[in-house]
């Protein structure tokens, strides 16, 4: 018994959505089948599993780190060379705020980008079964299973929905 997957290819969204419904009705668990498209479709267009994500935590986490680092950097810089200029205090809060602001935002942006990549489950250099026609408008329904006996069921669902081609991997 080995993990394998099959890919059904469709040219229209309706039969692809029918295939997704059929797979649910045939008892395939959520997360074992997915839909691949070359363009974003409205959420739920294929009755697909809507993934949960924690992307909103990333910028907040990054901003906290950036702010902490910036406080340390700006304060330490001035305290390390404590020369009074123009009668101003050694720790010039206004000047510190500008650099703290930029560093907080920068860390927030970097953390968001890391979050987008992580939550997209990338990088994935062995992405599995795929077809290049997906980026030409075709829609792929991919099913992954451990149990070989379910391959025939999946093929049957895909054929019934009107798959134009079925690929195995």
């Amino acid at each position, binding site marked *: 018994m080995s993990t394998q997957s099959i890919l059904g290819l469709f040219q229209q969204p309706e039969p692809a959505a029918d295939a997704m419904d059929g797979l649910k009705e045939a008892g395939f668990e959520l997360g074992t089948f*997915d*839909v*691949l*498209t*070359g*363009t*974003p*479709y*409205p*959420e739920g267009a*294929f009755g*697909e*599993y*809507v*993934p949960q*994500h924690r*992307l*909103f935590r990333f*910028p907040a986490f990054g901003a906290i780190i950036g702010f902490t680092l910036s406080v340390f950097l*700006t304060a330490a*810089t*001035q305290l*390390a*060379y404590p020369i009074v*200029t123009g009668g*101003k205090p050694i720790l*010039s809060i206004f*000047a*510190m705020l*500008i*650099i703290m*602001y*930029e*560093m907080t*935002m*920068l860390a*927030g*942006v*970097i953390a*968001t*980008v890391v*979050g*987008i*990549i992580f*939550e*997209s*489950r*990338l*990088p*994935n*250099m*062995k*992405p*599995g079964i*795929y077809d*290049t026609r*997906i*980026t*030409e*408008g075709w829609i792929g329904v991919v099913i992954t299973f451990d149990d070989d006996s379910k391959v025939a069921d999946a093929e049957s669902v895909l054929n019934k929905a009107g798959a134009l081609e079925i690929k195995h991997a």
Partner: protein
Amino acid sequence: MQQRRELDQVYTNRKLLNGQLDTPKWWAPTVSILGVIVLLGLIVIAIMINKGLGVTGLSRPVYWGLFITTFVFWVGISHAGIMISAILRLTQAEWRRPVTRAAELLTVFSLLTALVFPLIHAGRPWRIAYWIMPYDVARGIYPNIRSPLIMDPVAISTYLIGSSLFLYIALLPDLGNLRDRTAGWKNAMYTVLALGWRGNPRQWKMQTVGGILLSALMLPIFVSVHSIVSWDFAIAAAVEGWHSTIFAPYFVIGAVHSGVSAVVTMMALMRWLWKWDDFIRPEHFDALARPLIVVATGWLGFTFLELTFALYGQDAPEIALREMQMFEWPWNLLFIIFFLTAYAIPVPMWLFKRVRTNIALMFWTSILVNIGMWLERFLIIVPGLARRTPFVYTWEAYRPSAVEWTIFIWSFAWVTFLMLLFSKFFPLVPLFEQKESQVFTDDVMIGRAKVPAIVREAD
């Protein structure tokens, strides 16, 4: 979107990837010529560094001349990307789709170019290391964070890193597309860069949510960058015409005016060079020109305020400076050209839809705006310094040398060269955005009129 055309995805791929999958005939000669200019410019920069700043026209009291003017100009141009990409994305403006990538790209390359000018202007660029990020533990000398000359590189670096990451994230689906259409070493390159993109609902959701999140994060940076650039001048109390409280919003709105105009120039060039008539349509120029009228008029208001404050303050040196800017040769000629090109010619023309939808006219008027906006920066920076400490033995006014003009021309060739080089490997129009537009748009009948309708998700 009255001019919308139904385009299938194979056609969209073929047309929008024509720069990567084929090489247009004009590409190699153009890049070669630009490459020669870039090389000449680099040689001139090397000569200037070797000989010293004596080869420039910089001399007391004008030590900030063409280089700093061009630095501010390119930072201004860089505001195009986030203005177009982030604000239009957040407001779900449908017409943003063909212009976002090119605008983001313009941001990145113009910032890279802007950064060169303060470095070379310092005369000995390697010493910048002690100025910005010395952390010279051995000597115990650290940067003076109270100086805007430190805040400035911090802000620009933040903007550059953020914009580059924003550009890359939005490029991922198109890198997947290019991976599917190429073979050999190109396929290997796109496979690595696409990080294994497949286009499942999780990845698309992250593109959508992440795009909005990054837009929201980049907007405050966008405002801060040109504000901080303006403080390079506004915090200097000793120079007439610089010490102004309205400089931050004045610079930001001026940057949007010049940046969005630069996007218009680039859109026209993209349409003509790659023959993207189906994707970059007159309606897109119309949509960009409308907010430009408002932005330009707001910017003119700030220009007027600058002059009003100078007159009402009854500060004799300030009034003398304004007289010099507007009435003394050769500044008066520059002032007239500035006013005509930045506002008086293009904006009244844009009031007419015939002009807004005429691509050639939009191209030339957008170029006029950027001539004017460059002159605006020159007229802010140089006259203020020229009047500063007017020693009796300072007979000559600032006159940029051939070295400075060559480096100025180099900067335009360099940005164009980088854009064309990028276009050889990556699409300038986001394909997935174009395709999404087709999926989310349909024609509906209202009475006997067929009108395009755009579907939007509730959240």
